[in-house]
């Protein structure tokens, strides 16, 4: 019996037929309604064809009927884990086009919110991808600590996830009187949590075996496929918009753009962990120095952008988010295009997943940190 088995395993002649399997649209590791059509040979992935559009909401078409102050409220619903960054992108575009200078206080508040939301997003990514790889404990740890950030958001904006806080000209209301003390307490607490996360997963040998060397994306490929954000930076592609095209209070803070070298799943993992520490540093530099002043400048009742084309880029938790607006001088935009990071990132998966097993594809997808409404828009 053992002889026969050995012959089957070592015989090159025996091959399985290629066959197609749908991964999703309802699959826990796709984090939403994404369908990947896999071409498999046994367990080995030969091709991944993403099928998207299950929750396509037509935001680009809708915005053509809205006025500029109304658009930021819709952008919450794209990448809901980076809702404030999405709001900010549209607000910055309108402010830059009209050459409105917002008060320093607004810049500080926006940057602190950006970084808090990046932390919340990375935390959810951290715990959910732990779950994808079979470590359920991580999920509870992550959600427990993320609660602190959401409470801070709730106190100031009344919302926990889709903040809807930035408006053209400033922010909707001033920060809550408790904001600074709570953020400082949170930073202190969170600094003790990150080593705990590392102990739980990063140093875990099972986890390392599942991610190290899996799904390598080279720097050249990252640029060619337009893979931005922590995923691109893990491959060594220096693409941090906060560093290269600073906006809000980013020119005022000192921070390091973390760059990886390997571009494998473990590097992507480590890079986001490092980014969490860096985010804490950024908040720490700003939180005590929020200048006094107005939290918004008065904008005109009807906002009309001068005729022309505008492009505004910001760094969300997933990568470069861009807004491209064609204005014909009316109160509604002629055309709005959202360049979402997830859309470009998703396409690179086919390139790097070839030859890996299905379980490795899950590890790759987990470390790509996809949010489906961000892809579908």
């Amino acid at each position, binding site marked *: 019996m053992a002889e026969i088995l050995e012959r089957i395993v070592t015989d090159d002649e025996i091959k399985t037929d290629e066959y197609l399997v749908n991964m999703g649209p309802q699959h826990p590791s796709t984090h939403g309604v994404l369908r990947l059509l896999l071409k498999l040979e046994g367990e080995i992935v030969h091709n991944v064809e993403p*099928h*998207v559009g299950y929750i396509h909401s037509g935001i680009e078409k809708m915005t053509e009927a809205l006025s500029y102050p109304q658009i930021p409220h819709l952008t919450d619903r794209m990448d809901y884990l980076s809702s404030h960054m999405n709001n900010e992108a549209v607000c910055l575009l309108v402010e830059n086009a009209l050459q409105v200078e917002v008060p320093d206080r607004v810049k500080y508040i926006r940057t602190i919110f950006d970084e808090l939301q990046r932390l919340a997003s990375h935390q959810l990514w951290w715990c959910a991808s732990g779950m994808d790889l079979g470590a359920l404990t991580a999920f509870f740890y992550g959600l427990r600590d993320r609660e602190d950030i959401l409470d801070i958001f709730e106190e100031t904006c009344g919302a926990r996830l889709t903040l809807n806080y930035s408006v053209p000209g400033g922010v909707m209301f001033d920060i809550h009187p408790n904001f600074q003390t709570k953020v400082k307490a949170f930073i202190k607490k969170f600094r003790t949590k990150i080593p705990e996360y590392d102990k739980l997963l990063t140093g875990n040998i099972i986890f390392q075996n599942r991610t190290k060397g899996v799904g390598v994306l080279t720097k050249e490929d990252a640029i*060619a496929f337009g893979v931005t954000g922590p995923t691109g930076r893990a491959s060594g*592609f220096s693409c941090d918009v906060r560093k290269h095209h600073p906006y809000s209070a980013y020119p005022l803070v000192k921070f390091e753009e973390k760059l990886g070298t390997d571009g494998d799943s473990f590097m992507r993992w480590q890079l986001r962990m490092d980014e969490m520490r860096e985010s804490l540093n950024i908040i720490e530099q700003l939180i005590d120095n929020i200048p006094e002043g107005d939290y918004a400048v008065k904008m005109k009742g009807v906002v009309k952008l001068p005729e022309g084309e505008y*492009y505004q880029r910001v760094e969300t938790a997933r990568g470069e988010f861009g807004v*491209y607006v064609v204005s014909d001088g009316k109160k509604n935009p002629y055309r709005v295009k959202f360049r979402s990071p997830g*859309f470009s990132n998703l396409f690179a998966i086919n390139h790097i997943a070839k030859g890996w097993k299905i379980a490795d594809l899950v590890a790759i997808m987990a470390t790509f940190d996809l949010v489906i409404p961000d892809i579908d828009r």
Partner: protein
Amino acid sequence: MTNEQLIEKLTSAYPAAVVKMGSQYPEITVSFDKLHAFMLDIKTDSQLDFDFLVCESGVDYPVFLQVVYHLESTSLKHFLVVKANTENRETPAIDSVADIWPTAEFHENEIYDLLGIKFNNHPHLRRIFLDENWGFPLRKDYKDDIHVVER
């Protein structure tokens, strides 16, 4: 390269194209039949080196459809907006740049899906969001017969 230098270089190298300074970035409008050769040029030219296709979008205008490419050079840090107009609105077609920047493949699928621009030599042109017999919703003359709301 600064914006002025970039405009100067492009004007002298491509006299047939229209180069101007946009509201933020230099813009160049290329004829649709020369687009592919032009794109290959600016990608391979070591002085320009546009290796990162940031964004590709389609816009519907009254007499033609337009494809807009936002390009950046990761080594030289300059930014360029390239535009190409289709010949007409009835049978809009333009050359694909997916062989130059692989990311374009997915972006072009989206533009084909929502605006109906056909991309020649595209490796796998398909509708990614909508059904095969759906209209092209981002066109200005698109009418939604099912979900239309009358005031």
